[in-house]
């Protein structure tokens, strides 16, 4: 017990130390985003989804990143146009690792960088005509594409372009689904508004145009696996479990999704939601309008996987419930072997997380399955409901940081000296210089999948590799005291 009190005292002191460095006005603002979790409280005691401070190295991205990079980009049979100057599309070109089957540039377009490459004249005279022509060109160059999404970059909303009018016109002319998305990077405070805008575009430009009167042979086991972006194949490692328990996955999205699969959401008996943050909006809409319930699940680590499989099965009949038990039983040996192999090497290791979406909470169970302790966590672009949901995962005294800057994370890491940090590529090399083992928890550091039972084995191996690499014993020259 005293250890927890010590940690709490230290963490509070740490927060104060960090805040003291800021100018007064900025310090007051940041104070609301940092806290030490008190067990029993309904949330983590931090404010969130607020503008980042100017001049402070926020890790956050923008609305475009949330729409093109996260929600729309992975839909593989559509061409996603980064509409505006060349950069946004270039930097987000195939870096997120949403795996998709198909022939690139022929019937699968997720790994392409397609842009209107705005020049000065497009800014001055507007880009609508260029967009109009560009969609015709997509039709001839990519004849198998099922649609086009227009991912707005900053200038679009500033120069008064009417991409919605262009989209309507081109849909009529070409027969393609053309989806305008108003995800200009200056909108909102982070990626998060981009997710929301992208969700609304699915509602307005996919569901509202789809024909739900058309005949469809449904079964009582139909589900849509959604808000899994198939990073390193995550969605496949999840789908395999759902199918094994007898459910019929009629749509998967948006990782490795086709447009048709996205249209399937309203047809499902239940929507299974992996990343609540990025697609809860459309799940709520489908529930309201089509009466399809949705449920969050967590497929990180055997404890949470078993919990989630049972929770999902509870929505179905006894056959599915029995199947869920069989799936759990079938994988027990694998999990026991993985834990037997890696837990002795990882037990008691301290982890600090700083990620986006759902991971700051969802992966905690997987670490705990391996005997590891998450001592600090925070969200890049979380909202209040994320911090409420986090309370069920964390321990008393956990350090909480919302929209943390590089500066804050460095200070925290210097004092806490965790055995592992899980965050993004921008943080990776900073902490490795400090001699702290690190895994990228957005891209799975080019590994994965981490979801499902297959993924847990990879997760455990990767954490072991990071922490127990001999390289960390070489950071100090032996002749130095």
């Amino acid at each position, binding site marked *: 017990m005293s250890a927890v009190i010590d940690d709490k005292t230290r963490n509070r002191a740490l927060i104060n130390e960090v805040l003291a460095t800021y100018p007064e006005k900025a310090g007051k603002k940041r104070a609301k985003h940092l806290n030490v979790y008190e067990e029993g409280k309904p949330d983590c005691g931090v404010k969130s989804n607020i503008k980042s401070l100017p001049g402070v190295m926020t890790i956050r991205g923008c609305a475009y990143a949330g729409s093109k990079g996260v929600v729309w980009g992975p839909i593989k049979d559509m061409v996603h146009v980064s509409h505006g100057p060349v950069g946004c599309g270039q930097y987000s070109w195939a870096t997120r690792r949403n795996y998709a089957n198909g022939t690139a540039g022929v019937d699968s377009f997720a790994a392409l960088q397609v842009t209107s490459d705005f020049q000065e004249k497009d800014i001055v005279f507007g880009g609508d005509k260029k967009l109009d022509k560009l969609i015709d060109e997509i039709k001839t160059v990519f004849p198998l594409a099922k649609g086009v999404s227009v991912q707005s*970059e900053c200038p679009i909303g500033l120069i008064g372009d009417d991409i919605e009018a262009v989209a309507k016109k081109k849909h009529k002319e070409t027969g393609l689904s053309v989806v305008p998305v108003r995800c200009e990077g200056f*909108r909102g405070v982070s990626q998060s508004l981009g997710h929301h805008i992208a969700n609304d575009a699915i509602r307005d430009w996919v569901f509202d145009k789809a024909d739900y009167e058309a005949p469809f042979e449904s079964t009582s086991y139909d589900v849509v696996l959604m808000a899994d972006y198939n990073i390193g194949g995550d969605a496949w490692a999840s789908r395999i479990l759902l199918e094994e328990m007898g459910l019929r996955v009629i749509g998967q999205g948006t990782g490795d999704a*086709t447009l048709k699969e996205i249209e399937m959401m309203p047809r499902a008996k239940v929507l299974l939601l992996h990343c609540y943050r990025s697609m809860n909006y459309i799940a709520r809409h489908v529930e309201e309008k089509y009466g399809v319930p949705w449920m969050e699940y967590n497929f990180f680590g055997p404890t949470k996987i078993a919990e989630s499989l049972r929770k999902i099965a509870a929505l179905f009949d006894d056959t599915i419930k029995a199947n869920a038990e069989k799936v759990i039983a079938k994988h027990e040996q694998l999990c026991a072997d993985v834990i037997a192999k890696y837990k002795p090497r990882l037990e008691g290791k301290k982890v600090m997380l700083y990620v986006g979406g759902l991971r700051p909470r969802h992966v905690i169970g997987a670490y705990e399955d391996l005997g590891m302790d998450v001592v600090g966590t925070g969200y890049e672009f979380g909202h209040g409901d994320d911090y409420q949901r986090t309370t069920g995962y964390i321990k008393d005294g956990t350090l909480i940081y919302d929209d943390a800057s590089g500066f804050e994370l460095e200070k925290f890491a210097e004092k806490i000296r965790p055995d592992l940090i899980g965050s993004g590529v921008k943080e990776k090399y900073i902490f490795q*210089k400090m001699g702290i083992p690190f895994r990228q928890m957005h891209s799975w550091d080019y590994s994965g999948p981490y979801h499902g039972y297959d993924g847990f084995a990879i997760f455990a191996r990767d954490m072991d590799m990071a922490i127990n690499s001999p390289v960390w014993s070489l950071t100090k020259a032996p002749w130095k005291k």
Partner: protein
Amino acid sequence: MAQSAEKVLDHSALFQTPEYKELFERKRAFEHTVPVDEVKKTCDWTKTWEYREINFSREALTINPAKACQPLGAVMAAAGFEGTLPYVHGSQGCVAYFRSHFNRHFKEPVSAVSDSMTEDAAVFGGLTNMVDGLANAYALYKPKMIAVSTTCMAEVIGDDLDAFIKTAKDKGSIPKDFPVPFAHTPSFVGSHVTGYDNMLKGCLTHFWEGKERKESTSININGGFDGYCVANTRELKRLLAEMDVEYTVLSDTSDVYDTPTNGEFNMFAGGTRYDDAVNALHAKGTIFMQGISAAKSAEYVEKVGQKAVSLHCPIGVAGTDAFLMAVSELTGKPIPASLELERGRLVDAIADSQAYLHGKKFALFGDPDMLLGLTGFLLELGAEPVHIVCTNSTKDFVEKMEKLLAASPFGQGAKLWPGKDLWHMRSLLATEPVDFLIGSSHGKYLERDIGTPLIRIGFPIFDRHHHHRFPIWGYQGGLNVLVKILDKIFDTLDASTVEGSPSFDLVR
């Protein structure tokens, strides 16, 4: 179940197992994708001359361009000065992208801040963001200099950096005498190399404007936007030391993007010292290693009275000769025997290997200066450049490249494709095949689609490690490039014998 604790399969093996192959088949039933044979037919058609013509008639659509936007280059130029925090005025997402882009290439920390402009700034302008942003950045990171560039958002709404920075100083965000060079870097003009040039000029203007120049014996050197800046700059320093030349590297990123793992993170490692940058005004001249991408800076250098020497990413024997002779001419120092010896060794290496290089056909893509340097080297190897794609081409580049090609019998079969992208390149490779492709990691899709082996030289290199730690400039750099090319030639030759060919020679 294929997965086991004993032999953990990750994505590359896991998804090849029967259970996942079957899953993909089940999934296909719900995808409503095009039938496999139609995909195959269409794929074949995209490799025809007919498709090439359709592809080359594109006017509005850009697919897989080989260029990025201005502020990326501005961040690199700024990072090369000691204690400098690159600061980008505009939307925050851009800076996250610049940082991660460099992270993935250099595998290094990359520091840069944004002043996070949002909707209200779009309406009222970003002055408040600048005032708060400079104050926060100064207090938190304690830089010696903050170098400000812009995103397209700030450019579209017309924010005035000069006035904003002055106002921020008046309001006490930062001390009045705190150095804040700046450059407007609109993303819808030019490319990342333009942004580098603009920021370099902004910094030089800050260091030199209004100061009296007294010519010294020293020279300046600038590498330009260079993915190999770490090793190239060190190689240049070594060569200049061999020649006993006094020099200042303008924007020295060699120790910025190559820091040790020693238990400490140093946010402001390396960089050209402030005083050195100021005193660089007095140099006899400045050598720009990538002249096309430094046009404005070169103009400014001449304006202050220095000589500006523009080279073009000199790779190989003639390129390095030209560099050393330029240094010699500028400083009056002779080229020492030690460097002539290095030269002879590179020539020796080329002579040993020329039979494998002569007449090999190459396609290339990249930045203008890089393409000039690589093409020059290929020509002296007796190799034949065929397709040269430069998305961020300039008029000056086209003239220089055409002259370079015309001067060599090995350049007669080459065609330059200014402003084209890598989807154009796909058609070129499919209809007029070549032996090898040279370019950045983005070329790997072409290698997969068309089968042309990719030699990774350029920026960014995301999928191979540590290439930037080896120079491509100087005679040593030429040797590195030679070996990269040869290794791919030999690997390809060996791989071609897998189907039972006897030509699997032990000695080549």
